[in-house]
């Protein structure tokens, strides 16, 4: 089977001259369809930068990124927006829900621009939030807000789910519930799922773990068996 993502010589430099910072230098990586991939590394190691380029939020300075038969590096702003719209679901550390919309409406929002969205009820049901649909973000706990964010990300049935420190702001118990939702979604929708974390224990969750250091891939480990979120500790 062809990989979902192919990266060759992916490089990202911020700024120029002596002040230039190489966030990524020469990344080569293939990611299979439906894979749950963990990107692990300390702050500033380049993992988030790679995630952003893969999601069309940022552009590479050099190298190639292909998603299926599309070259992301060749796309203009409009095409990137369209790529995100059609294929990508994002989850961030700070949830980023729209405060003026209820949980249900936050999920429904995505339905307005997707071709074949799942219903908001179904998406919220998948993350175990069927009952709190009519609450506004301010009326939900952090974990609940993040699960709404997951539901929002999956409602358009994305091919790719990009999660940047999804549990970074959560305690263990709520973090585990969010990860359980992610794993469940990955299993049910077969979305290629990337989770950025600096928490080494979370790494046991994925099919493979890519370790970053100073903008380069230091190692790629394959987990023999995925650890269920309920068994994680941090």
């Amino acid at each position, binding site marked *: 089977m062809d990989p979902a993502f192919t990266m060759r010589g992916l490089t990202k430099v911020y700024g120029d001259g002596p002040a230039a910072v190489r966030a990524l230098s020469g990344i080569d990586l293939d990611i299979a369809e439906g894979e749950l991939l963990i990107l692990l590394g300390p702050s500033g190691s380049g993992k988030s930068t790679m995630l952003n380029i893969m999601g069309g939020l940022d552009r590479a300075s050099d190298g190639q990124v292909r998603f299926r038969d599309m070259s992301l590096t060749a796309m203009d702003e409009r095409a990137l927006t369209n790529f995100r719209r059609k294929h990508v679901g994002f989850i961030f550390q700070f949830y980023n829900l729209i405060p*003026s919309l209820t949980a249900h409406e936050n999920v429904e929002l*995505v339905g307005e621009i997707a071709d074949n969205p799942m219903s908001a009820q179904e998406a919220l049901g998948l993350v175990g939030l069927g009952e709190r649909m009519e609450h506004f973000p301010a009326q939900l706990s952090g974990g609940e807000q993040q699960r709404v964010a997951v539901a929002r990300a999956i409602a358009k049935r994305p091919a790719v789910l990009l999660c940047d420190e999804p549990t970074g702001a959560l305690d263990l118990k709520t973090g585990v519930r969010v990860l359980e939702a992610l794993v469940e979604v990955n299993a049910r929708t077969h979305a290629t799922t990337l989770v950025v974390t600096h928490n080494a224990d979370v790494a046991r969750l994925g099919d493979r773990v890519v370790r970053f250091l100073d903008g380069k891939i230091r190692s790629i480990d394959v987990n023999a068996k995925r650890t269920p979120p309920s068994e994680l500790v941090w």
Partner: protein
Amino acid sequence: MRALDKKLLRDLWRMRLHAVAVILVLACGLSVFVMAVGMRGSLERTRAAYYAERHMADLAVSVVRAPERLALQVANAPGIAAAETRIAGLALLDVTQIEEPASARLVSLPLDGRPRVNDLVLRRGRWPDRARVDEVLVSEAFATALGLEIGDRLNATLRGRREGLRIVGIANSPEFIFVSAPGELFPQPERFGVIWMGREALARALDLEGAFNEVVFRLAPNANRTETIEAVDRILRPYGSSGAYGRDRMMSDRYLTEELHQLSTMAIFLPVFFLAVAAFLVNISLGRVIATERSNIGLLKAFGYGDAAVAWHYLKSALVLACLGALVGSAAGIWFGRSVAEMYQQYYHFPRLEFAASPLTFLGAWGAGLGAAGAGAVFSVWRAARLSPAAALQPPQPAVFSQMRGAIAALSERLDAKSRIILRRIVRYPRRAATTAIGVAFAIAILIVARSFPAVMDYLLDVHFQQGNRQNVTLSFIEAREIGVLHDVERLPGVIYAEPFRTEDMIFRHGRRRVQEALIGVPEGARLSRVIGQEGQVITPPAAGILLARSLAEKLDAAPGDEISVEQTRGRRIQARVRVGGIAEPMLGSSAYMDMNALARLMREPGRISGAHVVMDPMRHSDFNRRLKATPALVGASFVTLAERSMRTNFDEHIGLMIAIYSAFAAVMAGGVAFSAARVTLAEQERDLATLRVLGFTRGEVSYVLIGEIMALALLAVPVGCLFGMGMAMWLMRLFQTDMYAFPYVFDPNGYAFAVAFTLTCVLAAALIVRFEIDRLDMVGVLKARD
């Protein structure tokens, strides 16, 4: 520089666009303040100096004919410092520069030396030689308008006699700073001027040898004015005195006083408006800065800065803006004042009028600017001071929204999510939404006010010329003539239609009150010259009795049914009693009106008329004018069509410029409010908008949320702004009202449409500028940041 001050400067730089809006709005308001207060002061000072230096009369009196031997007796009346008897009259002039006859007020120069009262400023040439009877001085404005030079000759018709005059000098007088022909509201310097000539020559021409018909006085410092007036009246009453009067009835001074009154109104009204908006802008922009600086405020306090130090830090940024605004406003005010002074020179003939604002004016401007900015800042600054450091270091709680109820909920159900975001934000933050909407409403209102002036002027001109005075020319006779003379007028070349009129200058008395005014006799079914009421209706005098203008009735304390007495100020000084038949509210003037025939009977001259209004064939003006110049029985010819044309030109050139400046100010304000509101809305929604972009919403779709909110608020502001503008315009018209003219409120749909369209365009433009910031949104940066 202290670190905090560096931070202050950088904060200001970051909010520079807001800052520019605040500075410009403040500068607009303060420049009007500096201009109006400075101009008022300059006019007052210049007038006072001119009056003092040239001995401007405090009192004047007209008589029919008094023997010169009374001069000493009058000069010795109590309270008189100086008195000057003189001869004055009107003349028709035949000048080659214009086709129509011009006219002039003739004033005699004393036999011995310069006038002791109302002395002249000789601008060019020399004083007339007493031995040369034809030598005259002409007023500077008249000479300039007609291009008259020293040595030029004028043909004048005085009391039916033609005299050749020779110009030997050009002069100005404190008595004629503002000059308009009798019965004309506005100056036409090429058609009416002042001529000073030797006493003997003028006396001979007017059959007043050994006599005088005017006295002008200077009062002694401690004079009892009323006593003096009574003494003078006692002496001169037998000689046809119409009663001594003060500067309030001297045309020139009266106009100047009204101008000063209007400047005072302007000095208060417009700046207050702008300062309020500037305060509003400071409030929303500083409010936003402080909201984003929450954690910094927490840090400062954690480091040990006190509440007062923090408050001062933020207050300073508002005060810096105020100082910059005041600086720009002061400079612009000086420029503005100089331009207005130049404009005034065209209407008011001072030897020299220079704009100079006093230090106190600038102090006032700076104080007002600082006060407005401080008032705008106080709420935000107070919030910053009150913030506890622990709370400030916590992220702010996410905004709590709750389900809407009733009609709004029903509306919300029918909207898509993006529109729902807009609706919920407006409902959730009603005060902020109201502030933005009120700001936009302010902008609409000031544009409506600015545009209402030309509309009112247009309306007044229309009423005066198209409805009130539809004649092309008004001819006045030296004395009342038999109505049969109308046939002669009708036979003048080019005359299509002639309508008679009768007018008398009268002293009205009711109880102890006494007012001098014109009594106008209107012919039955008048078609040309008609009295137009404030509602635009034609006012017809009652068949019996007299109709008083409201302002005249108030001065006389007379009501319908009361009997008042009238007395001619000239001629045979006929006295009569008439019953007040009604009170009218004419748009212009404060005269009294009667049926023309009834007035003639009252004056014991039935069937006699004072003149005729004439409609002309425009192709035959030249023939008409030639005949007119050769008709000695006329004392005046007023060319209504020309007056209208010159007024409209004047208006477009001068008042038009003022309106353009005010419109530009209104535009700055509308733009500033719109921009600030759009910018603050973006800042508050930055995170939501970035989220939408990340979710795959296009720029256009995201812009909809931002622009939709601003435009929704702007649309809400439209009716409010229109009502507000209408109320302000009405109020302002009342403030500007004088007893010479009533300014009606005129609803001008075009003005409203312009105000709304312009403001909405500004709002949209500002929102689009902000929209470009959406394109530059650092989506990742925004989303990864803690709120």
